[in-house]
């Protein structure tokens, strides 16, 4: 009985110190992880904002007025003379 008590009085402080050191390491890890989380959240928010800006730019560049402006600038013209060559289904009437 005396030996058990003596043994525990040696082991328990060691366990206590070990747990304290472990807690210090884990706390330290959590702090740096927390900071990383904060930075990641900020990065996500920044990327979302960038996406919105890009979507706005894409929308503007692909708008019909911009396409028309660019097309006219490239020399494309609107045709006023449209000729229909054949009505539909003519080829279906031909036997091979």
């Amino acid at each position: 009985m005396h030996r058990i008590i003596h043994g525990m009085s040696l082991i328990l402080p060691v366990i206590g110190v070990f747990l304290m050191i472990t807690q210090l390491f884990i706390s330290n890890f959590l702090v740096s992880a927390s900071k990383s989380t904060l930075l990641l959240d900020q990065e996500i928010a920044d990327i979302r904002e960038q996406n919105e800006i890009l979507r706005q730019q894409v929308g503007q560049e692909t708008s019909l007025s911009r396409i028309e402006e660019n097309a006219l600038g490239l020399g494309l013209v609107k045709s006023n003379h449209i000729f229909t060559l054949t009505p539909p289904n003519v080829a279906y009437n031909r036997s091979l």
Partner: protein
Amino acid sequence: MFRVWSAFGFFTFALCCIVSRLFWWQVIASDDLQRQAQSQYYLQFTLPANRGEILSSDGSPIVINQPAFLVYAEPKKITDVLSFSKKISTVIKREPEEISDQISLPNRVWVPLARKIETPIVEELKKLNLPGLGFEKDTKRFYPEASMAAHTVGFVGSDENGEDRGYFGLEGYYDRELHGKDGKIQQEKDVRGAPILVGDAKRFDPENGRNIILYMDRAIQYNTEKRLQEGIETYGAKEGSVVIMDPKTGGILAMASYPSYDESTYTEFSKDLYKNPIVAGSYEPGSTFKTLVMSAGLEEKRITPTTIMNEDGPVTIGEYAIRTWNDQYHGPITMSKILEYSSNVGMVYIANKLGKDTLLRYIHEFGFGSPTGIDLEEETSPDIREDRLWGDIDIATASFGQGIAATPIQMVRAVAALANDGWLMQPQMVKELVDTYGKRVIIKPKKIRQVVSANTAHVITEMMVSAVDLGEAKWAKPKGYRIAGKTGTAQIPVAGHYDAKKTIASFVGFAPADDPKFVMLVTLREPTSSQWGSETAAPLFFTIARDLFRYWGLPAQ
């Protein structure tokens, strides 16, 4: 003994003071202290929800969001209010006195200065490096197609709480679906403000607003607005509108009106322009209404296309004389000819054949007198007087579309029934709703009722084709296409009488007649080049129709 009691009294008194002070901190001031403590060790912020986008039928953006900021001031951090106000006033375009008055109000720790400020302006403000100037993220609507479809879309303003709210058009009607729900994060933080991962945390993710996908074709809308603008200039009209609908689904392919406004700067325009005249403005349809009355006569078998009536002069009803539009009379004519000649006298004949009750029943069945239910916020419907208040002259004039008011959307929907085997459809702007996770809710086309039989619809279609081919507007019709249509020239009622010089010229029709892909109504108010629909609205209709045939690759028949 006295000393013992004195000591006892003193300690009792001290105990009471301590207990009452504890009561104060733990009970009375508890809420306030909890809030202060939470603000010290809790990180709390709102996750704003993005407002849903409005997309055309091919997914092209009509309305999207752009990053914006709320600019605010923290008066306690500002050292020189006047200098601060002067520096930012030129950038945010407000009077410096106004800004300094706002900042100088007593006991203010946070003062909003401007909302919905775009990124380039915010960058300019940041360069000023002013202490006490802050920025909070916000969003703002962006219109890639500029002011296209302004009446259809509406705009986003603020409600009484300063929150974003849609007004008019789609933004108003679908405000709840577009708005979404802001989220929240509440997390324990350390002394440096970093979150404690194993601490207490609550997170409510934002629910972004749903995107809405329209029936509207972006290219058709763009082209229609351009053609309407050209038509207004060519024919010298004060106002005009064009609405194009798919008769089979009720889907609105394009909706344009003039004058319009720019929804991105709506405050600079008169409030009278905000309402969409196609769903909220009324007019007397004139001769375009004859197609509906004619179809009623055919459906009730009171007439056939070859029934003959004698158009030998004006018809007298009470003290009134009903004349043809050109005071020409052709003797014995068929019902088909009544439409070709657009004979008011002929229409009175049909109205008499139908009788008051039957005619009024068809007017209601075609949807007049009640809103169509289109998904736009500001739709109204002109009232139709009670049946018992209709006299003989009212029935006679209603037969050719005068003395009865309708909105353009009611008129185009009614004629669309003739293009859809007699089935009246509910007009619809939105085809689908899509949430952030991609889940789609399809809004199915809604059949209201069958007003006339398919056979009657086909017969009236042929009569309308004949009216286009042989009527007053035949000179403008695209060759090789079968277009069913009718011109209209309605006098405008002014102070209880009709003004002979002022008209609303219109044309309604659908094509290709055998399998209609679209039904379109064109209206021009007070055209000055000519008052007649056949010379103004009809050519504009045919111009847009040609564009549509080309766009869809529909060859001549």
